């Protein structure tokens, strides 16, 4: 049985898809993290975010996070979906859903997965402002 679902897509991410993958009769809860595009950063107005990925490697790294979460926490299933391309304010770049028999493990695994994704998965975002653009995290 496949316990992890990882996806990178230029289509709109669907919370329902992640929910349906992890949902199971043996589980007492599902934790879902939905990342959304914020309209400002450091008091500057953001107009859109442009995400790009080293897709084959990013999928491998996402799979590693899912596999590690399945070993580290008492969870049943995990889905990690990430979007690429231009996303408007309020759009969803990332969804993580985790199911478990007891809620604590699902919350912990969900937080572990998003924290690790932000550190290791080769995906980059360029912030677009009214007066220019900048690659996030890339400058000294």
């Amino acid at each position, binding site marked *: 049985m496949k316990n992890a679902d990882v996806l990178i897509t230029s289509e709109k991410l669907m919370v329902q898809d992640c929910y349906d993958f992890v949902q199971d009769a043996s589980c007492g809860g599902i934790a879902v993290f939905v990342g959304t595009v914020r309209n400002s950063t450091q008091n500057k107005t953001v107009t859109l975010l442009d995400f790009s*990925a080293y897709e084959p490697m990013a999928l491998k790294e996402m799979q590693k996070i899912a596999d590690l979460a399945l070993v580290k926490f008492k969870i049943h299933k995990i889905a990690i979906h990430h979007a690429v391309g231009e996303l408007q304010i309020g759009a969803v770049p990332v969804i993580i859903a985790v199911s478990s028999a007891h809620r604590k493990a699902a919350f912990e695994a969900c937080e572990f997965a998003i924290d690790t994704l932000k550190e290791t998965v*080769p995906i980059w975002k*360029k912030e677009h402002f009214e007066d220019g653009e900048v690659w996030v995290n890339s400058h000294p």
Partner: protein
Amino acid sequence: MKIQLLFFGIATDLVGENSIFYELKSAETVLDLKKELLLKYSKLKNIEEFAIAVNEEYAEDELVLKENDVVAIIPPVSGG
């Protein structure tokens, strides 16, 4: 020895390339290659730091490169 170099994120903008075939001068390891690339593409110094992936896996500085390796320049990631 020839390798393929892939550039991502800010590195693409700085170097002006997505993917090139690259003949190693004298570099044998990942660390050698990093030094060689910083000489060839001095604009890469504008990035705080970058990691190297070889054949889709993060590589340590000591890793020895092989013919036809696919080597990616990975600037600080910012997904999520």
